[in-house]
Structure formats: C-alpha cells, structure tokens
C-alpha cells in the first residue's frame, strides 16, 4: 500500500509544483495541510519565545524583594500578555498545527475538508498576535488586567485593552474556523473502513476538542464584546454604576474558561495516547474507555466553572455543588492516567525522547491534577485563591501537561515531517534540562502559595525571598533550554540520518507514507481493515 501511495504522491507532487507560486507567496497562498500545519507550528514556537521572554521579565522582577526591574504597571502588562500569548498564541496553535499535519495522514484523507478556509484560519493568527504584542506600544500600554480581563479594571484600561479585545476576537475566529474544518474532515473524509471507533486516539481528542471550541469560543467573543460596548457604547453589563454586575463577567468568562482548560488538555492527551503505545509496543489499553473518558471530561467541563469563583460570595449550596462536580472530573481523568500506565505494563519499553517527554507528562500532569483536587475543596480554595499555589498548579498542567505533550509529539513526528532523524543525544539533553528547570521554577511556588504569597504583585514580603530566587533561576534555565529545541529542529531539517517510513514501528496510517511525507498523500484513499 505504501508503495502505491508513494507513486501517487510523486505524480501529484509534480502537478502541484506546476501551478504553485514559489518563495514567500507559496506560504501565503498555500492550501496544503502540511504547509499550513508547519506554519502553525513555527508561529506557535515564535509566540512561545515571545511569551517566554515576558515571563522572564516577570521572574527578573521577582528575583529579589522590592521593585528593581520594571514598574508595577508594566509588570501587570507582562503577566497579562504572557498568559494571553501562551494560551492563545503558543499552546493552542501548536496543537492545531499537529491536527493539520496529522489528522489527514491518520485518517487517510488527501487534505483538510476546507483547504482555503484552513489558509484563512492560519493567516488571521499573525494579525491577532501582532495586535497583542503591539498593544504594548500604544499610549497607556497593554491591558494590565491579567488574562481573565475582569471588570471593573478592564473597563477603565486604555486603548491597549481594545487591542486585546480585538486580538481575542480574531483568535476566536481562527479557532472556530479551524474547528469546523477539523470536525468536517474527521466526519466526512475518513478512508473506507476507518470507523469512528478505529480512529487513532489523537483524532478522537481533536474531534471532541473542536466541538468544545465551537461551543465556548463564541461565548468568550460575547463576553469581550460586552466589555467593548461597556467601554465605548454606553451599555452597562458590568458597570455597577449603571446597574450592571462585574461578577456576571466572571460567570460568562469562566463558562468559556473552564472548557478552555480541556481544549488545551485534550489534544495533549491525544498526543500522549499515540506516543505511549508506540514506545510500549502495545496497543493502547482500554481504547473504548479512553473515548468515553474524553467525552465525559468534555461534558462535565461545562458544569464546573464557578470553582474559579468560590470567593465571589456564591451561595453555600452553589459552592458545594461546584466542589463535587469538580472532583467528579478527576474520575475520567484518572481513567486516562490508569490506562496509560496499563498500556506500559509489560510492554517492551524504550526511552527515546518522545517517550521521555510522555513520561514526564504523566508524572507532572498527574501532580498538577492533584493540586487541582486540593484547590477544588472550597474551604481550602478560599485560603489559596490568588496565591502562588494556584500559579504552581496551572503551570503543572499547562507546561508539564500541554507543553511536554507538544514536545513529545514534535519529537515523535519530526522524522515524518523532515525525513531525517533528530539528534537523540541533544533531544534527551533537552528533556532532562527542561524537566529539571521546570521543577526548579514551579515546585517551590507551591510552598510560596501555601505560605500566603499573592500572585500578580511585583513585590513580596522578605520571607519569600529564597524560594523566589530559586524559581527565577529555574525560569531562566527553562527559557534557555528551549533554544536547544530550536537547534535540534533546525539541525533535523538540514540533515541527519535518513528516516524510514515507519521509524518507530508504530501502527497508524501516517507511518505507511514515506518520510518525509510527500506534498500530496492519500489521493487514492487507503483501505483500512
């Protein structure tokens, strides 16, 4: 089958080159899912560097007590932009990039369902990204509200806030178009014989994530539109002086914000569910229960939003309901963790870089999940709300969860994308450096939070000095280690050991096409038995 596809790929590859612009215009006008996937991944990495640089400004300020490096106003802008850029500019596009590259290859489709719309959903992103970054340079600077954009502060900010609002609108449009594309591709373009329950787990996670995105991105768009009209057009949705209620914004925001957490986490789960079976040489344990676990996580995620709002004065019964519902999410997530462990049980394990990142994910994401359970308890959360404990918790699930998973996926599929093996020694070095510095940065923040250090404040009491110094050293180490990844990728693109079609001996249609994957694949759909 592979040979047949190969031949086809070449024929059409030639065809394609005939009427394809070259140079820059190739990338601007491309409708090829592989080109667009690559652009998403590069954009994501660039934003990861920008957002990372911002976090280093934050950590530089927090290296010592007192105000040394930046003004408190600029510090607030940094925490806001760091979060918005990392969530919407780095993590989400990274997984959309994986989706673009891998979903057609995994289900045996020639391309995404709406190739032109795919081009659009990518090219909106750089515009949105420059809006966010550019807002630093307008009078009054960028939004300093934190990524949650809570009123009343967000109603009082300068025009940087309007740019953030429009940036969020554009990012939302991009995600929605991308999601419609992914759902349509998965539901309509699967190869004959590829039933839904035979689909690779990565496609399953993305199918459900895309539904989540379609359901909640418009709600966020509505919330920021209300902010915009409150700011400029005399409405008073959130302005108490006109009968509005700032707490209402928190409800609408977190109705989006909590499913958003799983929008980030589910594709990460999907990548891990590809990598762990491949390096255990076993099919994934409990495929069906995995699918149901993903679906139930997605559904429950709509009904837990107010656990971000325990201190807003919601009634006690409400607090109890949201506490129990939040704890309930730990059950399907636990199912997934146990299934991954069971997949490795008695497998023929090898520990190449993708597997190391997957294992790092498994340990650290679970740790982040546990601190999440601690925070789900209302009585505890009231003590820990807005402390560094929360910061530590969500960086364990965002960085050690999503980013580690993205690295696992990148190393896993790099040979397929470039046709070369990456440098295994450097890859492993990247993993161990990242693991060490990540924990140095964030583990100590648990202690800071438990001791009462508040987040989003550029100064702190003297007793927090030691842990903050360690955390800042860790952050700079973590940031610098990521440059190593860039080097590994460039080295891998330039050359290296030739990669075979199926480098890891893994199942899945993507490994039946040669490496690097030809420009056009599966023009004749493969048959899945």
């Amino acid at each position, binding site marked *: 089958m592979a040979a047949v596809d190969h031949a086809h790929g070449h024929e059409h590859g030639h065809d394609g080159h005939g009427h394809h612009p070259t140079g820059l215009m190739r990338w601007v006008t491309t409708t090829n899912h592989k080109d667009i996937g690559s652009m998403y991944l590069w954009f994501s990495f660039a934003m990861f560097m920008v957002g990372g640089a911002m976090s280093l400004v934050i950590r530089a300020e927090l290296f010592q007590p007192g105000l040394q490096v930046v003004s408190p106003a600029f510090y607030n802008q940094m925490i806001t932009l760091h979060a918005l850029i990392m969530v919407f500019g780095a993590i989400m596009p990274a997984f959309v990039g994986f989706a673009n590259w891998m979903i057609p290859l995994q289900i045996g489709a020639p391309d995404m*369902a*709406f190739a032109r719309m795919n081009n659009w959903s990518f090219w909106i992103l750089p515009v949105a990204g420059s809006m966010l970054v550019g807002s630093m340079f307008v009078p009054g600077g960028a939004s300093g509200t934190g990524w949650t954009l809570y009123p009343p502060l967000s109603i009082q900010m300068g025009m940087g806030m309007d740019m953030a609002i429009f940036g969020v609108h554009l990012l939302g449009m991009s995600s*929605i178009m991308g*999601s*419609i594309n992914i*759902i*349509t591709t998965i*539901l*309509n*373009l699967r190869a004959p014989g590829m039933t839904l329950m035979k689909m690779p787990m990565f496609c399953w996670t993305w199918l459900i994530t895309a539904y989540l995105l*379609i*359901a*909640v*991105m*418009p*709600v*966020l*768009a*509505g*919330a920021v539109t*209300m902010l915009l009209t409150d700011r400029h057009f*005399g409405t008073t*949705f959130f302005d108490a*002086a*006109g009968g509005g*209620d700032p707490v*209402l914004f928190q*409800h*609408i925001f977190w*109705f989006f914000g909590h499913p958003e957490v799983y929008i980030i986490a589910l594709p990460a789960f999907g990548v891990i569910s590809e990598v762990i079976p491949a390096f255990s040489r076993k099919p994934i344990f409990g495929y069906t229960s995995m699918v149901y676990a993903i679906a139930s996580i997605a559904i429950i995620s709509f009904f837990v939003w107010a656990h971000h709002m325990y201190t807003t*004065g*919601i*009634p006690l019964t*409400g607090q109890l309901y949201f506490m129990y519902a939040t704890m309930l999410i730990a059950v399907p997530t636990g199912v997934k963790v146990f299934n991954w462990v069971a997949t490795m049980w008695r497998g023929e394990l090898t520990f190449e870089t993708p597997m190391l990142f997957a294992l790092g994910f498994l340990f650290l994401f679970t740790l982040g999940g546990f601190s999440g359970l601690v925070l789900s308890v209302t009585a505890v959360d009231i003590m820990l709300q807005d402390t560094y404990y929360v910061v530590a918790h969500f960086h364990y699930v965002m960085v050690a969860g999503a980013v580690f998973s993205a690295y696992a996926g990148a190393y896993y599929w790099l040979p397929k994308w470039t046709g070369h093996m990456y440098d295994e020694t450097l890859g492993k070095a990247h993993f161990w450096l990242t693991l060490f510095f990540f924990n140095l940065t964030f583990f100590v923040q648990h202690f800071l939070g438990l001791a009462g250090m508040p987040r989003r404040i550029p100064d702190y009491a003297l007793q927090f000095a030691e842990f903050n110094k360690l955390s800042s050293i860790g952050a700079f180490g973590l940031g610098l280690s990521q440059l190593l990844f860039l080097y590994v990728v460039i080295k891998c693109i330039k050359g290296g050991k030739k990669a075979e079609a199926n480098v890891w001996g893994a199942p899945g249609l993507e490994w039946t096409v040669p490496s690097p994957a030809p420009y056009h694949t599966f023009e004749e759909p493969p048959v899945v038995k």
Partner: protein
Amino acid sequence: MQTAETNKTTKKKRTLAMLLGGVVVVMFGFGYGLVPLYNVMCRLTRQNDIGVADQIKNTQVDLSRFVTVEFDTNTHNLPWQFKSLQTSVRVHPGEMSQAIFEVTNDRNYAVSGQAIASYGPSFVAQYFKKIECFCFTRQTLGPSETRRMPVVFVVDSELPKEVNTITLSYTFFEIEGGTTNAKKAEVKAVRRVEAG
C-alpha cells in the same frame, strides 16, 4: 461516477459546516442569554437583594432573651461624616426597633453615596430583617447638608440561642458618575419622547 461521489461529499461537507456555523451563532447568543439568566438566578437566590425591604414572617416576640445590636459606621473615599446616634441597643428577638444615623456632607457640592450593610458574625444576615433603611436607595447630599436617617429592623426570633451580640456595620461608597447616569437617563427620556 467519481465526480458524482465527490459532489455528494462536497454537499455533505457544506451541510455540516453550515450546521456548525449555526451552533457558533447560537452560542454567541447564549453568551448574551447568560445576562438575563444571571439576573434570574440572583433573584431566586436573593444574592443581590441589598436594596429591598425584608418581609417579616415571624412576629413572635421572644421575651426570654436579649440581643445586643452594636452599630458601626464607615465611609469609603467619600467626604462625608457618618455616625450612629446610639452605639448599641438591646432588643428582644421579634421586637421592632429603630436606630438613627447621621451623615454630613463636608463638601460644598452635591455628592451621591450608597450604604452597604454587613454583619458580624456574617451568618446573622439572614436573621436581621430591615423593614426600612437608608441603604435601600442612594443618598444624594447637597452642599454641607446634614441628614438623619432611620433603620427600622427586627431580629428574627429564629436567631440561634448562642448569639447574643450582633454588629451591624454600614459603609458608604461614593457612586461614581452619578451625574453621567442622570444625564444618560435624561437622554433616554428625551429619545423616548421624540420617538413618540
């Protein structure tokens, strides 16, 4: 045959995309729908009912015990003098009582403020029934004006036996943009008149 197949897929793809686009529009509307839903929830749970007189259901006066109600007054960024004319009162649960508060505007221009009540211990809020209160409406004081304002209240006789002291604390907040809102209302009224 090949094209017929492709056309069928294209049509299916289009239909699905339109459907999903419809979901997007509906969810955008749902975001706005959360606004009235929130107001309904607030009414049902009575979370935001700070400016509404309480209904008295329990009229039984419990003569067997006394509760001391202490008064505390604060202002938040407001050029007003605010005090209670009595430091505390001793009442029987179920008995109707009154306390008088006095507020003076220190400035030579009109200022609007809104008083917010809070209770110590906080759970007694549900047993402290205010029948009349200056905190139900915003207060606008003219230049250097002094005003005496009553609070008429009943401590519900369901109040747990172990509570013998309640602190009622009021804080006056300035209502910012009071004039702007008045102007907005004026503009709206004028528009309504013009419209017919």
